[in-house]
C-alpha cells in the first residue's frame, strides 16, 4: 500500500465522523483543527481506522500519533 491508497481510504472515515465540520484533509490535520475531535470521537476514529485497514495500533503508536501524518505513517508501516 502506498500513501495515496491509504489517504483514499482514510479521508472518507474522517469526512464521515466529522461530517458536521468544515476542514481540509491533510497530513497536518489534528485535533487542534476540528472542534468535535475530542477524546471520545478520537476513540471512534481509532476503531473505525483499525477495522478499515484490518490492523491494530500498539499503545506506543497511539501515544506518538499527533496528527494525520503520524497516523498515515503508522498504517504504512503495517501495510508495507
Amino acid at each position, binding site marked *: 500500500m502506498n500513501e495515496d491508497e491509504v489517504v483514499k481510504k482514510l479521508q472518507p472515515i474522517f469526512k464521515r465522523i466529522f461530517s458536521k465540520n468544515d476542514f481540509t484533509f491533510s497530513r497536518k490535520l489534528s485535533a487542534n483543527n476540528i472542534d468535535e475531535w475530542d477524546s471520545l470521537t478520537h476513540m471512534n476514529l481509532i476503531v473505525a481506522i483499525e*477495522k478499515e485497514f484490518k490492523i491494530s495500533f500498539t499503545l506506543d503508536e497511539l501515544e506518538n500519533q499527533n496528527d494525520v501524518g503520524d497516523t498515515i505513517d503508522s498504517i504504512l508501516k503495517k501495510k508495507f
Partner: protein
Amino acid sequence: MKFELKKLLSPPFDDGELFKNLNLIKEEFSKTNHKSKVKKIAILGGSTTSHLKDLLNLFLLNNNISSDFYEGQFQLYYEEVVYNVGKLKEFDPDIIWVHTSWRNIKKFPLMKHTREEIDFLIDSEFSLYKRIWEHAKENLSCIVIQNNFDYPDYRVLANKDSIDIHGKIYFLNELNRKFSDYDRQNDWFNLFDINYLSFLNGSDKWQNERDWYKYRNSPSLRSSIDVAYGVSKLILALEGLSYKCLVVDLDNTLWGGVIGDDGVENIKLNRDHPIGDAYLDFQNYILELKNRGIILAVVSKNEDKIARLGFGHPNSILKIDDFSAFVANWNTKSSNIKEIIKKINISESAAVFADDNQMERDEVTKNSNIKVPDIGDNIENYKKIIDRNNFFELIHITSEDLKRPDSIRASIESSKTKENFGNYNEYLKSLEMKTEIKEVDNFSKNRFVQLTNKTNQFNLTLEKIDFTNISGNNILTLTASLTDKFLDHGIVSAIYGKINDDKEIDINGWVMSCRVFKRTLEYTIFYKFYCLCKKLGIKKIRGFYKKSDRNIIVKDLYKELGFKEIKKTKNSSEWALEVNEDLVFLKKMIMINYE
C-alpha cells in the same frame, strides 16, 4: 432514519461502521422529536463510561425511550452512593448502573492467605457492593443494575486458577455466585451478566489492554457495544418492552426442504443427517422458548393442510399445539402476521419474525413494525442469531408467563366458540368462569408488580410501581385470577388504593391483562374492592384516569361503574363514588363465581 443507519444498531454489530457513523446517528436522532417519557440513568463506572453512555442512549432512542444521563466520577462508584460525593442525589436517578469489572477488585487473595482469610476477603468485597446497592435503594429509591465479574486474561495458577482457593478465577466465581444469590432474593436488583458476554466476545476482543492503559476502557471499546446493547435490553424489559411472540416460517426454517414439493417423508428432520440434526436442535430451542412463556405462531406460504403435515413427522419436536396461532395461505406474510398479532392481542413491536427467505424478511420489514432479524439461510446460524438479539429478556419468571402460550391458544379457540353464540352474555356464561380475588401476599407480589408495570391497555393511571409502593397499613391491594373451562389464566388483574385520614380511598392503580378483556371481570374485582371498602368503613372511593395513546379502552370505566366525574383535563379525569350509593353495574356483571 435511514435503514442502513438503523441496521447498525442491531446485532450482529459491525463495530467499525458503527463507530464511524456514531456522530451521524446521534444527529439523526436529535432531528426526531421524542415524545416518550425520559428515563434518568446514572452510570457509575469502575472504568471509562463515556462510550457506554453514548451507545446506551442510542440503543434506547432506537426503541423510543429518551434518557438523561449522569456519569459518575471515575471509580468513585462507592463514594458517590454511600457518602453522597458528587451530584448523584440531585440527579435523582430512576436507574443506577454500576459498571464494574475484575479490574475493580480491591484485594485479590495472596498465596500466603489461609482459607479463613480468603473467605474474609470474599465477604468484604461482597459487602462493599451490597452497601452500594442498599444505599441506592434506600436513599435514592432507584432500580439497581450491577455487572457481575468477567475474568482477567491471565492465570498465575494456570489450570488450577479456578480450583485452588488462591486463584483469581476461584475468587471471582465465588463473588459472582453471591451476586446471583442476591439477585434472586431482591426484586429491585438486576444483575447484568458481563461474564457471559465476555465469553461470547472472546477474551482477545473483550480484554484489550491497550484500550485499558490508553483510555481506561474495560471491556474494550469494541466490546462496549455488546455491553451497552445488553443493558438497553435489560432496561427495556424493566419497562415491560420485551418481545413476547416469535412467528416462524416453515419450509427451510423449521425443517430442511419444501414440504409441498418433497413430501413429508423427505423433509430433513432426522438426527442421523447433519442438516436434519441442526433443524431438530433449532426446533428444540424454539420449544424451550415456548416453555418459558414465549408465544409461538406459524406464518407459511402453503396450503394449510400440507403445511400442517410437517408437525406429524415422527421426529418433529414441535407439535401443532405448541403454536398459539397457525396461518398457511398465499397472502403476504406481513398481513398474515398482523392478523395473528390482532388475535393474540399484542402490539406489532412485541413480535419477532424468523424466515430463511430474504425477500419475505424484507417484505415484512417494509410493511410492518415487526422485528425481523437477518437469520440468513444457514440452519446452523438461526439459533445463535435469534439468541444474540436478546429479544426475550426477562426480569422475573412468574408462573403466569409459563402458562401464556397455552392460554392464548385457548383464547383463540374460545373465540371460535364465541362465533357460535348469538348472545355474548350466553357465551360468557358458557365459559364457566371462576375467579379468586385476594389481597396481595408473598406468593402474588412478583406477579402483581409485573402485571402493573407491563400492562398498557387496561391501565387507568399508568403508574409504575415496585413492591415498596404497595405495602403498608393504609393500602388496599387486590389481585384477581381467572379460570374458565378452557384454561387457568392465573392472576390477570390488580387494583390498589390508599386510604386517607378522612376515610376516603384513592384508587392509584388498576390494570387487567388484555387476554381477559370483555369478560366482565372488571366488575367482579371492583365489586369485591367495594365490599371491602364498605367493611373498612370507607365513605368515598376516588378513581383516576390518565390518558395515553393505548389505554383508551378504559376511558369510560369509572362512568360505567357509576362514578361521578369531578375533575377533567385534556389528558386526565378524576371520579368519585359514595360508598352507600346503589351499584349500577351489578346487573351487567356476569356473576363470576368468586372465593
